[in-house]
């Protein structure tokens, strides 16, 4: 072995450059091919994502107004960031979005997972029900908000009437969207209902990706239904779980439409979100610089959370 080793290395050393040369020519050809195929995507990403992102970094450090004004645009350094960090409303909005995320993750993903498991069974009319459950997800969020806004009406809206009837009048009508203690929870309810269809489809795909042989083998080994779920389904869905979790978190942090339509951030700023705060700064107060600073902060927050989640889930051997 000790004798053979150098010989081997030598042969390898001799062979390698030659092989590299031959491969290099092929590589270069392939490289051009690859660059050629990458180019459209890279160009589009650069023009529509990377450049605007760098621009927003720059804008964040100026007092750029939304529309041209007679007063000059100045470089003001980090003043916009300081102003945001000093504004209680920003911290409230960050806290609200965290609250929203904390609620929506179990509610929406749980609902999606449960329906996916149900619809993965061999039920009659399975495809019909799959379509039915997916219906809210393809309905415009704006439409859903208007409908739920009516359901939520206080004190005589349908939801309150149903609750009053079921509880025999014990539960007083709830001001779903007008009570600072309830407003965010109401938004969670309708958001989860609207959006869980997407996660459900992802889970269904994940479930279909688990080979039947594994279940058959588990059955032969004498595993009961719960054991099959815990030891075959769950491990098989790990990548799906990660994907769903990350996507849902990022979406949750971008909460805007529901708030803009139903509560405009109120009551008492209880549903103010970071994106809504940003839009208000940019469009209502017409401070594009300030709004850009918010967007930069939001980007960093989402980036950190996504990285943390990856690390955390990797530690759990996912």
């Amino acid at each position: 072995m000790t004798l053979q080793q150098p010989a081997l290395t030598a042969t390898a050393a001799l062979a390698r450059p030659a092989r590299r040369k031959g491969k290099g020519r092929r590589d270069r050809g392939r490289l051009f091919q690859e660059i050629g195929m990458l180019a459209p995507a890279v160009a589009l990403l650069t023009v529509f994502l990377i450049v605007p992102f760098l621009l927003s970094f720059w804008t964040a450090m100026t007092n750029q107004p939304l529309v041209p004004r007679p007063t000059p645009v100045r470089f003001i350094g980090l003043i916009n960031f300081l102003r945001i960090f000093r504004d209680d409303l920003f911290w409230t909005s960050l806290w609200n979005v965290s609250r929203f995320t904390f609620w929506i993750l179990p509610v929406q993903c749980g609902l999606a997972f449960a329906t996916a498991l149900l619809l993965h069974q061999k039920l009659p009319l399975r495809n019909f029900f799959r379509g039915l459950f997916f219906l809210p997800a393809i309905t415009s969020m704006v439409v859903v908000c208007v409908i739920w806004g009516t359901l939520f009406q206080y004190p005589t809206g349908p939801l309150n009437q149903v609750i009053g009837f079921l509880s025999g009048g014990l539960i007083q009508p709830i001001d779903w969207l007008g009570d600072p203690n309830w407003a965010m929870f109401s938004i969670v309810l309708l958001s989860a209902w609207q959006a869980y269809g997407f996660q459900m489809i992802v889970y269904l795909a994940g479930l279909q990706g688990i080979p039947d042989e594994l279940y058959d083998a588990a059955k032969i080994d004498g595993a009961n239904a719960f054991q099959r779920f815990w030891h075959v389904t769950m491990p098989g869905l790990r990548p799906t779980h990660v994907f769903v979790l990350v996507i849902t978190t990022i979406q949750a942090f971008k909460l805007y439409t529901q708030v803009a339509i139903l509560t405009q951030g109120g009551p008492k700023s209880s549903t103010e979100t970071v994106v809504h705060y940003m839009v208000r700064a940019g469009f209502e107060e017409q401070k594009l610089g300030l709004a850009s600073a918010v967007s930069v902060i939001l980007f960093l927050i989402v980036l950190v959370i996504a990285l943390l989640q990856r690390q955390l889930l990797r530690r759990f051997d996912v």
Partner: protein
Amino acid sequence: MGNRLLSMLMASAVLGGIAEAKTVIHVMHQGDPGWVSTYGEVAKRFEAANPDVDIELIYAPHDAYNEKFSAAVMSKQLPDVMELDAPFLANYVWSGYLQPIKPLIDQDIVGDMTASNIAQGTYPVDKELYAVGLTDSSVVLYGNRKYLEAIGARIPKGVDDAWTREEFEGYLQKLSKLEGVKWPIDTFRGYGIKTEWITYAYGPILQSAGCDLIDRKTWKSTGTLDSDACVDALTMMQKWVKNGWVVPQSSGTNQFFAEGHPAALALGGHWFYAEAAASMKDDIVVMPLPKFGPKGASPNGTWIWGITTASEHPDIAGKFVSFMLKDKQLREHAKETSGYPGLKSFAADSPLYAAGGPMAVAFEQASTTAVARPPHPAYPTITSAFMGAVDEIFNGGDVKAALTAAAEKIDEDIEENDGYPPFDEQQ
């Protein structure tokens, strides 16, 4: 919005290509469905009378109007004619979007304008007229006659003997205990928390109480909006809400005339009359806004028409504005929706607002207690900051802290724009 701009872009591209003979006038406006279709018909009639002109209407909902307008500015898609909310006029003129309208419209219209209408269209720096409207506006206190009689309330005859603060709060208290009354008053929180209504309707309560949104000489908000008088006035309103006297935001805007008449009073705009009177008939009483201090105050100003500096055909744009303001069917629709006259000829034709008419009190307010919203280019920030403070306060927040934060936000904006010259020199 994107779609609208896009379709506008495409429309102008297509029309620009084929119809060189036709002049296209873009008209940006807001309004409920009734007004939208009325404008559509006016445009058709104008096109029939002027075959070489094409009127392109661009609709934007009024709660996001300023935002949509900014988007149009950014994409260099300014319309020729635009409807604008009067308090935003100073901002638009200061930013250079509007041109003086007097030379562009029929001169008999200029002579026909009421003083309040001229005031809402005039830019305070150069005293030029930049916009003109058929209508103006006001807010009154509507009452349910049966409830008011039941508590023995005094019914004011004119603006001079409006209810005082003590009377008003006493009646609210009594009404809250009256059978059938679920809420003593609707202040139309149902319009939302991000709506001009808040500054428009609640601002006069501050002015009547002896303070304001901003000092109109020094243009500083700190020391005015967070003064004791303002804190006291909004603490009073907070108390109404806390006591359950005010219709909550999520209960809609029809509780005054809804079945069973759950709300006894309504602090509502003049436009509310048509709908309420249709349902309540003789049970509706129109009263002046209460006095919250030594003098009364009421709002004014509405959506008026201006011509932008981007217009390539300002003369034709002016012709369209004149045509629209004189259009009979448009005036008819304005009357149906209890439109508040801003032109004398329209006032003469509106028995609703004439002496002895049911809304005479509202018209009387225009010349006695009306206070315009601050004509300053910082108005978008002023109103946005005040809306935020009111939401905080109505939901139990600290009044002084909320008003201080709003005042600081306003002053910060003015500082950031170097005082919006030349407003920094006006004393």
